[in-house]
């Protein structure tokens, strides 16, 4: 499993997001230190990465809260918590669900191949 956190240093939210992500990994029995943390420094890098704001968390390339039509660039990303509140970080439940989906997908494929 590839777990990435992309951030822009102009937004102060990534340490909290990284903490939530590592807690979710530990809760799932995964190594909390497996996160690849990468800084996006320029607008060009943002475009190349498909970066819609900081922080962005991807698990096996999939965004934990996929963005629909948001512009690419160096900005703070706006998330919605499950209760509707705005937040600078994704809902921890969304992170846990994304991890669960990523860990269950290979198992489902393996079981499918045995059937």
């Amino acid at each position: 499993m590839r777990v990435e956190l992309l951030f822009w240093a102009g937004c102060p939210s990534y340490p909290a997001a990284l903490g939530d992500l590592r807690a979710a990994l530990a809760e799932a029995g995964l190594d909390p230190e497996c996160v690849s943390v990468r800084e996006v420094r320029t607008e060009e890098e943002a475009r190349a990465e498909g970066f819609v704001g900081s922080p962005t968390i991807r698990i096996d390339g999939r965004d934990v809260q996929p963005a629909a039509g948001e512009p690419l660039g160096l900005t703070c990303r706006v998330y919605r918590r499950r209760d509707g509140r705005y937040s600078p970080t994704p809902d921890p439940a969304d992170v846990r669900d994304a991890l669960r989906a990523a860990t269950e997908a290979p198992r489902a494929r393996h079981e499918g191949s045995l059937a």
Partner: protein
Amino acid sequence: MIAIGERAPSFSLPDTSGAVHGPAGPGPTVVCFTCNHCPYALAWHERIVAVAGDYAPRGVRVLAINPNDAERYPLDSLEAMRARVSRGEFDGMPYLRDESQEIARAYDAKTTPDLFVLDADGVLRYRGAPDRDHDDPAQNAAWLRGALDAVLAGAAPDPAETAPVGCSIKWRP
């Protein structure tokens, strides 16, 4: 940079309908630098609107000011500001445009949000965040409310200054 106890810069800025507002008035004024695209500003927004509604009967005005560079951040355009106002998101406080960014610079505003509480004489009495946690609505803008309660009682807010928390103001290149 203005310090607590110093007179804050005056200004005249247009709101989304063109009416001009400034900090001079008979009661305390909250100058709130904010914007449309920052999750911290959005997370605290309802708490600040609630303060505007709760303290208006006591003569407090809240002026929201968007100073961000809208060329690089189109979500902070005047049109986008108008859309939020028309949706009722700024009931009880005008939403002003600091197109030149001169007022944000004069106040040495750092983030959205960044709050400045002025007493009736225009003297800065509190500067900083609305409360200690953008992620906890139960905080209810406690630092801002405490500052206003103190100013209305003729006392010094405690704390008088907290670190502003949010997205950096998007200055023009």
